């Protein structure tokens, strides 16, 4: 090893060093700001999670798998995954190996440590004849090649995104383009610069060969310095624009992952965790193809990637427009490789809106409602409680009141199974609060939750059965009902079938199941409704299903999308469902059912209706007669 220059310095390192320092300072300030913006309890929780071994290991694992390897993208599309991990992981390895190299070969670094690992080849000549030297040279060239292949793919992706499984990509902003071009140019320039020095400082299969092939040009050392200058400038430009471009996601995601693993949620619409999410958005545009509103071209700019961009720009009118239009189906959240929660972010934006007045439910007296559904309390000493059977309170929900076929079928199934049940909203109930929550009116939603909690606790039931996934989600997430199990009818029916309480005759109808947004992505219930359906007939899958299911278009999530604007979305979702030409469409949500029924060319039914038609009425029990006494009765 020999140092080529005694000073170990050349002016060309300046652009890089300035850029680097700028980015580090910017990120540190940002980091502190975000952490300070967290509510005190969250902040404490975050710090504790950092030192808890379990979460700390998880953080490192997640950062490695998500930020460097991009496993989620690999799952989506191999080429897309390779492109991202080659650039991220390749670059990371270049930095890592570069540092190791510097540490191995130099001592007494001082301020040179800032730029030596980057421009090592220029300053230090090294021999590749030793085993150690050859390996390091090889590794550096190899990872450079990996990154270059990723860059090449990135250039191709700009032109033909379909090869990468993306129909549409984001429209980059001006600064994004500068960042993009400087990023693209960093690595070819590095190759060029290192090729110049390959005959002096050594190189491997890439740089050495290049130097050998273009010996005329690359051996002319007069060209050397401009190449190193260009390389440093590309880095400097990239670092200077980074905070103002989508590339800010690289440092932010490293913060977002531990925050998420600490269990922190969005509280403030713009600060803290929300801010970390917004800046973590890599503008990849996967949410554009995912968005069900995307069937209409005019809605493309209302996807989550653009919401993040507008929040960064503080463009209030666009933020409002984008957040109010969204159906809150959660698909952008499901497909987002960094975990930006597009739906929750929008609810948070809605929650800061100013209203001159709002509802107030303090005058609502729930005693009537409790009296309407408290037979379990009244009958405490009767045989009902002594059978050990569950006491089911059925809350059909507002939407089910408009699709009576579902509630009628549900009651019929409960009768057939011999379940002891009571209907909570026979004469109209109080809304579950989820629609209010979706509109961002969190205080009002909490009041509704409180009212319903009072009714349910007063009913003496031990199981709350729900037909509507919209209700189900808020009951699961926001209600505290000690001793009461909350079940969606798809779960409950699945249990009834598997425990043999229903006698089901399988038919030969081909069903496709539409995963309602709130039930699937919202509550993670995918298999139970399919189990119910497969007991009734054959189940085929939609082209996009489960986590990727497409919103029916009827969602209450959107505040501004009018009825006439939703037709195209419903038709698109129907096309997705009928890809395997099923006879009938099944779903487990009253709102999805009536939305689809409006435009469908084949019958649309709730799983309750389907199950009821294939379930036999047991001969021993007739309607109205309660189940035979259980074994505890002796």
């Amino acid at each position, binding site marked *: 090893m020999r140092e080529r220059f005694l000073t170990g310095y050349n002016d060309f390192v300046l652009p890089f060093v300035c850029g680097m320092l700028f980015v580090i300072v910017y990120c540190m300030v940002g980091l502190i700001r975000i952490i300070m913006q967290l509510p005190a309890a969250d902040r404490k929780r975050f710090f504790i999670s950092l030192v808890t071994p379990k979460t700390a290991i998880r953080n490192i694992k997640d950062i490695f798998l998500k930020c460097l390897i991009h496993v989620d993208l690999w799952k989506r599309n191999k080429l897309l995954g390779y492109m991202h991990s080659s650039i991220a992981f390749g670059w990371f390895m270049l930095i890592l190996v570069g540092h190791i190299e510097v540490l191995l070969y130099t001592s007494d670094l001082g301020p040179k440590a800032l730029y030596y690992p980057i421009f090592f080849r220029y300053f230090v000549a090294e021999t590749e004849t030793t085993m150690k030297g050859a390996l390091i040279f090889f590794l550096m060239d190899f990872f450079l090649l990996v990154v270059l292949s990723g860059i090449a793919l990135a250039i191709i992706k700009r032109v033909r995104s379909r090869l990468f499984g993306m129909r549409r990509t984001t429209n980059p902003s001006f600064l994004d383009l500068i960042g993009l071009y400087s990023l693209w140019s960093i690595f070819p320039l590095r190759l060029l610069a290192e090729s110049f020095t390959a005959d002096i400082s050594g190189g491997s299969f890439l740089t050495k060969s290049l130097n050998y092939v273009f010996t005329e040009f690359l051996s002319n050392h007069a060209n050397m310095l401009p190449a190193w200058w260009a390389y440093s400038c590309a880095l400097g430009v990239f670092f200077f624009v980074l905070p103002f471009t989508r590339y800010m996601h690289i440092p932010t995601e490293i913060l977002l992952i531990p925050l998420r693993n600490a269990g922190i949620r969005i509280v403030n619409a713009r600060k803290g965790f929300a801010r970390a999410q917004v800046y973590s958005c890599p503008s990849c545009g996967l949410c554009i193809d995912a968005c069900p509103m995307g069937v209409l071209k005019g809605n493309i700019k209302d996807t989550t990637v653009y919401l993040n961009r507008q929040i960064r720009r503080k463009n209030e009118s666009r933020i409002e427009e984008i957040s109010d239009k969204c159906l809150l189906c959660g698909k952008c959240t499901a497909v987002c490789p960094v975990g930006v929660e597009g739906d929750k972010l929008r609810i948070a934006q809605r929650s800061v809106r100013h209203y001159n007045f709002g509802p107030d439910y303090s005058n609502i007296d729930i005693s009537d409602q409790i009296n309407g559904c408290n037979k379990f309390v009244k009958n405490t000493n009767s045989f009902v409680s002594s059978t050990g059977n569950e006491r089911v309170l059925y809350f059909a929900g507002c939407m089910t009141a408009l*699709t009576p*076929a579902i509630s009628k079928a549900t009651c019929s199934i409960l009768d057939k199974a011999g379940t002891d049940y009571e209907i909570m909203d026979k004469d109209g109930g109080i809304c579950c609060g989820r629609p209010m929550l979706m509109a961002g009116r969190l205080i009002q939603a909490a009041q509704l939750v409180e009212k319903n909690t009072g009714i349910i606790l007063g009913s003496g039931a031990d199981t709350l059965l729900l037909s509507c996934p919209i209700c189900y989600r808020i009951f699961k997430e926001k209600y505290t009902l000690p001793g009461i199990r909350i079940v969606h009818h798809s779960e409950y029916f699945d249990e009834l079938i598997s425990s043999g309480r229903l006698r089901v005759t399988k038919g030969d109808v081909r069903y496709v199941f539409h995963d309602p947004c709130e039930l699937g992505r919202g509550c993670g219930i995918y298999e139970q409704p399919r189990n119910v359906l497969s007991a009734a007939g054959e189940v085929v899958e939609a082209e996009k299903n489960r986590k990727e299911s497409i919103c029916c278009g009827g969602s209450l999530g959107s505040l501004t999308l009018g009825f006439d604007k939703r037709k195209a979305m419903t038709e698109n979702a129907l096309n997705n469902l009928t890809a395997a030409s099923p006879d009938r469409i099944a779903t487990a949500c009253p709102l999805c059912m009536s939305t689809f029924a409006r435009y469908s060319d084949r019958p649309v039914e709730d799983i309750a209706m389907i199950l009821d038609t294939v379930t036999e009425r047991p001969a021993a029990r007739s309607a109205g007669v309660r189940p035979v006494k259980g074994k505890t009765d002796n």
Partner: protein
Amino acid sequence: MKENIVIIGGGIAGMETAAQLLDLGYKPIIIEKSDHLGGHVADWNRLFPDMSPAADVVRSLASRVSGANIFLNTEISFINKLKDSYNIMLSNGISIVTRIIVMATGFALFDASKKEEYGYGVYDQVMTNKDLEHWFNTGEDPRINDSAMNAVGFVHCVGSRDEKARNTQCSKVCCITAVKQAIELKQKFPDAMIYCFYMDLRMFGKKYEDFYIGAQRDYGIRFIRGRVSEVSENIDGRVIVKAEDTLSGKPVKATLDLLVLMSGMVCSQDSTKVANMARLPIDTDGFLKSRDNVMDIIESPKEGVFYAGACTGPKTVPETLAEARAAALKVHLFIKGLE
């Protein structure tokens, strides 16, 4: 007369057109998909405003068209446009080359089960206007129990004036039909309370207003201005309807032994199918598009293709018959023009 005239649809529009053309000395061909002539009118019992039996109308028309070529149980497989004529392939294997087509494809009743909140097909005591006429004709319907008919409700505008039902148009005849049926039901069950839930009452035709006055004064039918939005079922199987009495500004609730849904008129799928085969345009209301909605309602934009009756929009029986006669005259003049 070697010119073929094909009339698609054997309802009253098709029959009247054929009858007129027969009188003019032509021998038209009627193509009817069902096994009988008369269309929707054949399913009806009596017709407003004079309560004339629908069967008489169908019978007299049928006797007048006996000289025509009638294909029952026949559908149209496809239509080819030739140079200045059409080749119509029928489902029975016969093909007809013609220069003249009269579209008398009529309408379809809105499928009331699509208004899920009304519970047609779900609740036992909910029927449609057509079901009620069927009961008038046959006296058979499990939903109508002679001993327990204390309260009956009629819901107007089911599948009409309703974006959610994908038909924003008024079906025109349901108001008067509801009044007629309410009177008839009251005649059968004088003690029953009968409600009509309406949004607007459109009594536009000859003597309709008299009918309405009679329903109010002589039969005591209760008219409630409000659209029914929810129907639920009692334990005893009766239905509870909820509406707003918009005139008093209060929600109303009524428990009924029978609920009759006034299904509106929509363009039938078969009508649209045949129109697509003949490349006829569809108007924004979903019915077939005329050359001009004022001057040329019975002419299609295609040479030699004419319309008669409800294929261009909801119509009453006399309007349909008048159009059919006009269509026959147009056909006659068209043939004269060809010679």
